[in-house]
Structures are given as structure tokens and as C-alpha cells.
């Protein structure tokens, strides 16, 4: 994709926590999206509220983009450390927007890059508040590249609508003064000129937002959760959008989160809980209870690096095998790992359907990288009209009336028992976390145990038919085959293109419906000359799953566990290293 696009620019806004780095990034992203560009962003922030260093990476292109390279063309420095921290990844002749009053620029940097000094702080103070430094910087950046100011002004008004007209006016003024400053002082001197273009309208959102929207469309009516970065924005999004259309409970802990969702699901409503690895650890027993009682539930697990508290605001794909084995005892489960916003939306809707069709727990497993990444998407890919709500087989009223007690765990061929909700006239619906008979009452005998165990496990075969084939891309016979799952999709796809351009024939397989494992996965490994599993973890967890569930052996792994996402360039470099190139 990189060669096809004529515009492919990488912006980075850096500053300390509390300086509004994320809001500059967010507003600029939307501004460019409304101006007709495709956007992919990556957020890098620390687990603190003030100080430190965080940055917002914004890739802008006239073609769809799915990943962020570790390369910068335009750097916006809100603090005195940004330039030195990102110097390494700036291409020659990068554009740097900074306030020399905050920090002198070193002669070396000055020699290689174009410095545009903007009195960010003075302008902010002139507008009334030093906090407006970020808003001034937004205006100044857009002025420098000659983008349209009105789009930005409109977005600022939307952004601060709740804060009142004064705040809107001051922010618009701060942005305008920044914009005018660069227009007046630097017009025609910046090597990057980006003007709005006419293009079909796009939506711009993060993957966590996509999960939140997906849950609402799927009819999720109950969410119980305990705050944990980077998962929290899922329910925050849902509440912001549809506060009055579902019930949310912030629980005392994650033990309560999952069990409360289970209680609601038993009551007949679609229920979800959201968390990250540590919270999921607390949910394990409840996860197992969902297996035993066959209660449909969706868990959105947004990972961060572990072990323990790990790197709370960063990314890792190290919870996959954990989720696969989570909960004591044996019971079926489904694991989805979205590759992008559209897939996060689709898979969330599907997760609720799968949970209710098969009475299982479905985990939507993604990680901070994608959770926090804004990307422009084609609204047609959020196809609302195509959404089907499938609640699985239900018992008839007649059945409830004629049978004195209901067999909520009826042994069937598929393993799925027709369902009924408590409170239905004449229905007595019982279930237990203890091993139980078809009526849900506690048993001890071996025969009933086996019947129920086998019935539950059979559901895994039944649900397999709903698992979609993984995506494959690139030429059929290639020297290198890359395998990925979840959030690494964009980086691997771009790496595949880059490798092919460089003459290394490459193809890829990407898995989002991760478990149960589709048979195509093994076939792909068999066909590959050399296959590398690319994943953000140390031990090669998906590679292990491939081995365990297909018996096939990938050639090797490309692993990264520093808490940062893959860039396409990193994967290219690692493949070449393995090829001895």
C-alpha cells in the first residue's frame, strides 16, 4: 500500500502527561479525516496523570492505512523533551514545530531538520491560559501545512460543547492565533502542504469504541465492570452513546463484575464484562462457572503487558494462552481477536450471538495498541442492516406448561439445550456450578456426570461450523509466509507488501476467530515454505496453539515484548534477518 499512495505522512505530537497530547492528536485526526484523508494513530502514554512523556502518532494518507511506521515527518513538541526523544526516528528534513522558549534546539537537529519556532506559550497566555498550548499547536501545525482552519474550528466547538461558549471561544481563538502565526511567518516554506481533498466520508474511531458500539447494536443490555486500563473506554463509550439504553454497574471488584454479568445473563439479558489481564485473573472462577452453568457471557479483555501490573498503558498479546486455559476444569469457550475497527465491531456482534447460540463464554481479546488507535473506516463496513440477533434455541411456553420442571441442561445431540428464563410463567429454571442433572440439580453419580460433561464439550464441535476461515493475502506460493492474529494485522499486511516490493515473495494468514482453531490454519502452515508467527509476546503463544491443535510446526516466530506495537519496518527487518538477507 505504501507505494500506491502519493501522500503518506507521519505526524507525532509529544509532551508531558497533562499537556493534552491525546486531545491534540484526537482533534487533528478528526480534522484530517473530515478533510478527506485516511488516518491511523497510535497512542503511547505512561501510567501517570502528570509529567513523564507521552506521544500521539498520526499517520495520514490518501489510501487506507492499518498500521503506524516508526518514522516521523512532522514533529510537534509541546514540552522540552520531545525532540531528543524522537530524534532517532525522524526522517531527514523533518518538520519540527516547537517553542524555542521552552527549549533550545541543538545545532545537530537544526542542521538536519526544518525548525519552525512558534511562541506556543506566549500565544496561550495571550488567550488566557497556559493550558491552551496544545490548542495553539494544533492551529500552528495546520497553518504550516496550509490545511483548512474551519474544519478545526468546527471540531473544537463540538469537543467543548459541554464546557460552554467561553471555553469554545478561547480555544478557537488560541487555535486561530497559532494558525495565523505560521501562515504569516512561514507561508511557502514548509515542504509538506496538505490541503483538504474531496473523498467519501469516513468514520474515525478506536477499536475499543468499535467494541462498545458493537455491543450496543448486538443488544447488550447489561455491563458490569471494574475500571482497568486499557479496557475502560469500552463502557465509557457505551455510556456516552446510550446511557439510557442499558444498565451499567461499576462493581467492587472483578469477581463481582463477572458474577453480576452471569446473574443478569441467567435472567435473560445479554451481558458483558470488560477488563484487562489482572482483572481477568480475578474472573477465572466465574469464567469457569459460566462453563458449568452454560450461561452465555461476553468478556472483553483488553491486554497490556504482564506479568502482574506490567506496563499498564502499553501493549502485548501475552494473554492468549491464559484465556485459552482460564478457569479450572474443562469447558468450551470461544476466543475472538479483532484485527481492526471493522472486525472489532463485527466480532462483538458475533460474540453475543455465539454466546447465546451455544451457551458459552466468548472472549474478545485485544490489546492496548488497537484499543487506543483511531483509524478512519468506511461506514459501509458497519453494516447495521445486516446485523442478525440470534438468541439460540428457546423452549416453548407449551413445554414449560406441560413439564413440571424445566430441563435447562437437557442432553441433546448438539450439546445445546433449549433455553428459558426465570420468571416465565410456569417455568422452573435451575442451574448449578456443582455438577448437575438435566434439571440443574446437584448430582454425584458418574453416569450423569459423563452425560453432562460430554454434552458441554460437544458444543465445541457444534460451534465450529460458525468459525470463519482466516484471511489469507499475497501470492499462493511464496518464500515467506507470515502468520498473525489480532491487532498485528496492519503491520503484518504492510510488511508483506514491502517484502514483496523488495523481491522477497511473501504471503500471510491472519486469524481473528482464534479459538476453536480453523482447519485452514494447519493447511497454511503445511503449504508454507517457511512460516513465521508474528506476535507481541515472548513465548510464541499462537505458535504453541498451532502446534497443539494442528500438529503443524511453523518455522519460527517474530516476537516483540517491549510493550510497543510492531511497525511494518520492524517485521521486514526481522524477516530479512531470518533469510540471511
Amino acid at each position, binding site marked *: 500500500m505504501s507505494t500506491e499512495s502519493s501522500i503518506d505522512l507521519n505526524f507525532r505530537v509529544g509532551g508531558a502527561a497533562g499537556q493534552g497530547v491525546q486531545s491534540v492528536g484526537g482533534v487533528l485526526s478528526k480534522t484530517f479525516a473530515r478533510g478527506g484523508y485516511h488516518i491511523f494513530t497510535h497512542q503511547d502514554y505512561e501510567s501517570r496523570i502528570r509529567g513523564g512523556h507521552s506521544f500521539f502518532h498520526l499517520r495520514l494518507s490518501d489510501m487506507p492505512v492499518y498500521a503506524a511506521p516508526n518514522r516521523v515527518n512532522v514533529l510537534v513538541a509541546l514540552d522540552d523533551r520531545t525532540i531528543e526523544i524522537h530524534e532517532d526516528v525522524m526522517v531527514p528534513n523533518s518538520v519540527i514545530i516547537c517553542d524555542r522558549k521552552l527549549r533550545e534546539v541543538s545545532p545537530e537537529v537544526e542542521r538536519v531538520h526544518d525548525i519552525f519556532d512558534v511562541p506556543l506559550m506566549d500565544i496561550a497566555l495571550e488567550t488566557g491560559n497556559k493550558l491552551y498550548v496544545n490548542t495553539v499547536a494544533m492551529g500552528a501545525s495546520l497553518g504550516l501545512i496550509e490545511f483548512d482552519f474551519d474544519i478545526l474550528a468546527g471540531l473544537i466547538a463540538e469537543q467543548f460543547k459541554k464546557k460552554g461558549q467561553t471555553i469554545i471561544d478561547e480555544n478557537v481563538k488560541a487555535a486561530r492565533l497559532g494558525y495565523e502565526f505560521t501562515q504569516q511567518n512561514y507561508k511557502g516554506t514548509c515542504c509538506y502542504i496538505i490541503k483538504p481533498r474531496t473523498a467519501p466520508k469516513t468514520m474515525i474511531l478506536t477499536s475499543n469504541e468499535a467494541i462498545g458500539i458493537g455491543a450496543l447494536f448486538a443488544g447488550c443490555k447489561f455491563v458490569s465492570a471494574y475500571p482497568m486500563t486499557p479496557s475502560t473506554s469500552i463502557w465509557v463509550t457505551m455510556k456516552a452513546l446510550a446511557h*439510557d439504553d442499558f444498565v451499567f*454497574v461499576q462493581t467492587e471488584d472483578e469477581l463481582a463484575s463477572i458474577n453480576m454479568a452471569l446473574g443478569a445473563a441467567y*435472567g435473560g439479558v445479554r451481558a458483558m464484562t470488560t477488563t484487562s489481564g489482572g482483572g481477568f485473573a480475578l474472573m477465572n472462577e466465574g469464567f469457569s462457572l459460566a462453563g458449568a452453568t452454560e450461561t452465555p457471557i461476553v468478556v472483553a479483555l483488553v491486554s497490556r503487558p504482564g506479568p502482574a501490573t506490567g506496563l499498564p498503558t502499553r501493549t502485548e498479546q501475552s494473554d492468549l494462552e491464559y484465556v485459552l486455559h482460564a478457569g479450572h476444569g474443562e469447558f468450551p469457550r470461544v476466543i475472538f481477536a479483532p484485527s481492526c475497527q471493522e472486525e472489532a465491531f463485527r466480532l462483538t456482534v458475533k460474540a453475543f450471538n455465539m454466546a447465546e447460540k451455544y451457551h458459552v463464554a466468548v472472549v474478545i481479546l485485544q490489546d492496548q495498541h488497537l484499543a487506543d488507535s483511531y483509524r478512519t473506516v468506511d461506514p459501509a463496513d458497519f453494516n447495521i442492516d445486516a446485523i442478525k*440477533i440470534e438468541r439460540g434455541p428457546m423452549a416453548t411456553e407449551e413445554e414449560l406448561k406441560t413439564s413440571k420442571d424445566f430441563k435447562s441442561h437437557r442432553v441433546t445431540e448438539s450439546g445445546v439445550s433449549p433455553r428459558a428464563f*426465570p*420468571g*416465565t410463567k410456569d417455568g422452573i429454571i435451575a442451574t*448449578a456450578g456443582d455438577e448437575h442433572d438435566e434439571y*440443574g*440439580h446437584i448430582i454425584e453419580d458418574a453416569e450423569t456426570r459423563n452425560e453432562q460433561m460430554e454434552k458441554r464439550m460437544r458444543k465445541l464441535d457444534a460451534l465450529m461450523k460458525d468459525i470463519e476461515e482466516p484471511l489469507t493475502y499475497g501470492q499462493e506460493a511464496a518464500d515467506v509466509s507470515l502468520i498473525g492474529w489480532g491487532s498485528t494485522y496492519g503491520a503484518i499486511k504492510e510488511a508483506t507488501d514491502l517484502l514483496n516490493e523488495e523481491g522477497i515473495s511473501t504471503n500471510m494468514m491472519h486469524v481473528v476467530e482464534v479459538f476453536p482453531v480453523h482447519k485452514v490454519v494447519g493447511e497454511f502452515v503445511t503449504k508454507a515454505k517457511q512460516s513465521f508467527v508474528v506476535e507481541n509476546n515472548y513465548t510464541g503463544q499462537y505458535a504453541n496453539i498451532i502446534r497443539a491443535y494442528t500438529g503443524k510446526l511453523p518455522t519460527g516466530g517474530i516476537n516483540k515484548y517491549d510493550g510497543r506495537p510492531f511497525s511494518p519496518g520492524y517485521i521486514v527487518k526481522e524477516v530479512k534477518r531470518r533469510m540471511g538477507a
Partner: protein
Amino acid sequence: MVTIEDYESRVKDIAWCPGCGNFPILEALKQALVELNLEPWQVAMVSGIGQSSKLPHYLRVNEYNELHGRILPAATGLSLANHELVVIGVGGDGDGYGEGGNHWINAIRRNPNMTYIVTNNQIYGLTKGQASPTTDYGMKTKDEPGGIHIPAMNPMAVAISLDCSFVARCFAGDLDFMKEILKKAINHKGFAFVDILQPCVTWNKVNTYQWYRERVYKLGDDYDPTDKFAAFQKAQEWGAQIPIGVLYLFKRPILKDDYVPLQRGTLLDLQKEHKPSQFKDLLKKFF
């Protein structure tokens, strides 16, 4: 008319020891439900793990038999999913005050519309006689022959301090009184917490029927359960005198009333009405 037979469970093999205080509790609950003219399908019980948590299997009602300690989150979720259900949680002192202590505190704060019965035998029955949070200081158990060396918690005082909307205690040896308290609890709008002194004839040889009978006394008509400080003082009585009855009542909004969607009907109704297209406009926010 609902009869006691309607509540007859299909489960005949009851796993309790003969003479266990759980039997009269089961009987009192059945009678209370019949007298309240509730149909079995209108009632949903959530229990945990422990001897007492098997209770819902022994009467004919809807039932979610949870894990050890997790009664209240599930019961809260259930009561929000369908607020027309009569939700009753039941479990042991270990389940509720130990493993589930944090949930108990927070359920009191949330005030879901449900009844929560703790069958308090001051011991861990199912795991064979270890100390529970309510085991009296100094009591010798099989595993602590030297005696328990931390003081017992006071569930009444804790619940009152948190402004639990209904706090009561009864004694398993007084079936009629228990039944009347349970009826009040079930009729109460909000979180009705009932601690039942339940003799465990197998593992607790100190707090026997006899022991309780000598000490319990019923709160009189002159007792005002709405006076928090008086209630708190009453809750300190434990030893020679143990008050039973409704110790504390506090008027406060129930959890469901805080939720706009639940003013339109049950969440289950809302679920049934759900159409994806109803959210179509919400995508506009992302342009």
C-alpha cells in the same frame, strides 16, 4: 391458591445432617412464600457454596447455584435483569461474611430489591468445622484446639453502620417467628438482610439450640428500628442476651430506581424489544 405442595422439590435426597438448623429454615421459607401467595416461578433463588447453599435445591423455585461467596453479585445482576422476580439469596456465614464480604458490603450500599438470608452457624459446616468470621472468640475447633484467637465479627452492627435498608436476625429454633420475619423481608422494598442463628449439630457444639434458646429474646413493640444509634447499640448485645427481630430499617431508594431504562419496564422486556436499527443515529458521532 399456592400450596406448600407447589414448593415440593423433585430432589428428595437432602444432604443435611439430621437435626440441622437448616431444616426449619427451609420450612419457614416455604411457608412464608405460600403465605405471600407467590408462585414458584415468580421466585428466583441464588445460593453459594456451603451446606445452607444447597437449600434452593430443596424447594421448587428458579435457582442459580453460584460459587462460594458470589451470591450477591449474581443476585444483583438477576434483580436488575428482571425486577419482577422475587430474588432471594441464601448462603452461609463463611460464604457471606468471609469469601463474599466485599460483595455483602457493596450490596448493602447498592440496595438491590432482594432478600439475603445468611444461615449463620458460626462455623464452616461443609468443610468440616473450621472457624468462620462469626465463630466466637476462644471457641475451640478441631483445627484450632487452642481456641480461635480473633474476635468474631458483628454482622448486625456492620449492616446498620452501612445503612442497610432492612436488618433482621432470627433463630432457626423458632419457626413461626422466622417465617414472619422472612415475610417482612421478602415484602421489603430494597436489600433485606436476615441473619439466622442456625445450630450446626455436627460441628458447633457450643452454639447449640439450647445455647441460643437460653439467650435470644424478641424485640418488643416499643423498639424503634428506625433509630440508627439505638439500633447500633442493640446490635452490640451478644452473650447473655441476643435480640432477634427487625433491628434496623432505613428508607432509601432501591438500585433499580436509579436506572432510566428500568423505568420503562424490565431489562428483559427491553432485551426482547431490541432492534439494531434503533442505534443507527449513534454512528453519526464518529464522523
